[in-house]
């Protein structure tokens, strides 16, 4: 903040020790008030957010951490005795948790990678002088408006094993149908398709915005140097939108680790365990189901949550390391 930001007609001095403005002695009450306003109001503005964040963000996290060290009687209203790290041990040793981990990673890879690639290509195509541009741009966002539950219901009937549209089409062209719910890889693909349906358009628009900020002279210069459309895309477009791409990748990663609605509504198992053989149970589904189980429901779910937090932190750090590498290469 510079001096010129101070209200006109007021004299403020910067104390050399702290660097913050200190009211010189002998100011009037109004001047002091104005000074305090200037100094403390910003904090007051942000207090509501942090107060809310403490209540609905930090407190549940801390409490679930606390809870993860206790037992919990079924239908009890409060926790039982302390059990140390037993709940963590239970979750880490649970083969279902291991399956859920790999399912989540698998669905994430199958959704995030095609999503970003397709979004980039579609955005590049929308960035050309099309007839009815706005109409095309709006229509890519349309799937995003569809409620996830509605999308999951539609895809649920498309991917029904015996009578679904997907298998009808496959059979019509002479192929055998795919066991969408019982084959692990097929179920990941089906769920990833739902995710991609919803999120590709959203990412397209973000990338499109970045594309439009690229100076057109760069393309002209490239064209003069003899670069074709494809070369322009790889040597001008992609390097220019790198920060936006990273944003898209990071949000897709977080979304991928939290995936719940799609596999839950895709589920044909009456226990909602993500397929009869846990083929597509994700980590968040694991937490949800654990909180419904008979023994120590909440503490075990809390332990699982904290393990997932650690996993996400690990992935975030990995993301950060890769990002820095990519940025550095870009700067050269």
């Amino acid at each position, binding site marked *: 903040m510079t001096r010129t930001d101070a209200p006109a007609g007021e004299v403020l001095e910067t104390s050399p020790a702290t660097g913050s403005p200190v009211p010189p002695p002998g100011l009037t009450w109004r001047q002091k008030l104005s000074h305090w306003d200037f100094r403390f109001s910003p904090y007051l503005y942000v207090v*509501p957010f942090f107060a809310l964040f403490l*209540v609905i963000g930090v407190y549940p996290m801390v409490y679930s951490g606390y809870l993860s060290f206790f037992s919990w009687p079924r239908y009890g209203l409060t926790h039982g005795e302390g059990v140390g790290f037993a709940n963590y041990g239970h979750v880490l040793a649970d083969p279902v948790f291991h399956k859920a981990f790999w399912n989540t990673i698998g669905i994430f890879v199958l959704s995030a990678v095609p999503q970003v690639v397709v979004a980039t290509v579609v955005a590049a195509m929308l960035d050309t002088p099309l007839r009815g541009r706005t109409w095309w741009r709006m229509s890519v966002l349309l799937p995003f408006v569809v409620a996830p539950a509605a999308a999951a219901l539609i895809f649920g009937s498309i991917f*029904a094993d*015996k009578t679904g549209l997907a298998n009808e089409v496959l059979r019509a062209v002479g192929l055998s149908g795919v*066991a969408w719910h019982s084959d692990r890889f097929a179920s990941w693909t089906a769920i990833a398709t739902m995710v991609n349906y919803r999120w590709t358009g959203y990412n397209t628009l973000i990338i499109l915005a970045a594309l439009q900020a690229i100076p057109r002279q760069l393309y002209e210069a490239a064209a003069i140097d003899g670069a074709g459309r494809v070369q322009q895309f790889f040597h001008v477009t992609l390097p220019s939108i790198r920060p936006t791409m990273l944003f898209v990748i990071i949000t897709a990663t977080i979304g991928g680790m939290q995936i719940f609605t799609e596999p839950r509504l895709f589920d*044909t*198992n009456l226990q909602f365990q993500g397929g*009869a053989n846990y083929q597509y149970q994700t980590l968040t589904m694991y937490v949800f189901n654990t909180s*419904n189980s008979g023994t120590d429901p909440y503490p075990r779910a809390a332990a699982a949550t904290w393990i997932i937090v650690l996993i996400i932190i690990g992935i975030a750090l990995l993301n950060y390391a890769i990002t820095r590498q990519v940025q550095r290469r870009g700067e050269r």
Partner: protein
Amino acid sequence: MRHSTTRRKAAVGAALALVAGTTAACGGDSEASQASLGKDDVLTITTFSDFGYDALIEEWNADPDRPFSVEMTKIADWDPWKQTLTQKLQAGDGLTDIVAVEGDAMPQFLSEGASDQFADISDPSLDDRWVEYAYQAGQTADGKQVGYPTDAGPEAFCYRADLFEKAGLPSDREEVEAIFETWDSYFAAGEELTAALPETKWYDSSGSIAQAMLNQAEFPFQTADNTIDVENAELELVWDTVTGYSTTLSPRVVQWKEDWTANFTNDGFATMPCPGWMFSNIKSNAPEVKGWDIANAFPGGGGNWGGSYLAVPAMSEHQEEAQEFASWLTDADQELAAFEAAGNYPANVEAQESLAAENATDPYFNDAPTAVILADRAAAVEPGRPYKGDMYSDILGLFQTAIQRVDEGASPDESWETFTQAVDGLS
């Protein structure tokens, strides 16, 4: 600008008050205060599937003399509602004044600790209102009444007479009873039909046949002292039979899901175990299909599938009114109305008697005498079979899932191993 300081402070104050208010609301008051309801106040109830209450509640709300009005939430299926119910009970908050509970899950809500979450709705004047075993199954060991029985699930067999005819099987209601005499005759006829009609399977799903056989077992999952025991001969017989016929007689679909529903209209199967409440499911899944009929027989005698309860959670602030309304809903006239609306066979003795006297028939099922059939089937039920311990519903879910794995192509041995592991994980 300076003049706005006070306003700004007021805004911050308001925001903080809002936060404080929210926190207080989250805490809630643990003692549910009982307030009586006025004419315009609303009593809430949650049911699942179709309890046949729509018209009854409409009627109640239209009546100017009713003491309060009622609002019903209908959940499509029991399984998700079971999860919600369990969670809200554990949270001690967020349930309606009356909740519907499926019969198989009743034992777990009666167990120690869980039953504290419900109000005691015992009323000595109602002692002889319901069939004895149904009434007692809604009671804890020390006599606290948790639920009023809404219906019972005596099972008959529904079948497609048109498909039977096509396959050269007898299709007349009286003649087919021989087919549904024993499990052996039942499966033998199935092999005949599937040989004649390769596109059609014998029953609707492996799960429903497993359920039917389980309902005749004595101690399928737990012994009388609630020790979990799944390695017993009774359960192994069910397992071997159902998984053995998985590839030949079963369409290998999961009950209540898309593929199962589709089979009703594309001749996907020819028979299904049929408690009264299944009637409305068949009608809504296959409104156009002609040929459905009901046999007054069940392999190996009888069986009771389902039958639900109305319970009042302790967290309800209107327990007295809730009990009053639950009592009204389970009285003879209302259980009769529910039978007419949804086929739910009453657990109410008086309603059962008047159904038998009335000799009701159902045109959809080729004028089958539904009242007589269900009364006969109810008489064939052996009370107390199967024994349902506190983990019955949980293990049943895992068992059905194990069968689903075999239907999906897993080897029975492998699936059984996963099942026993999951059962071990319950404790």
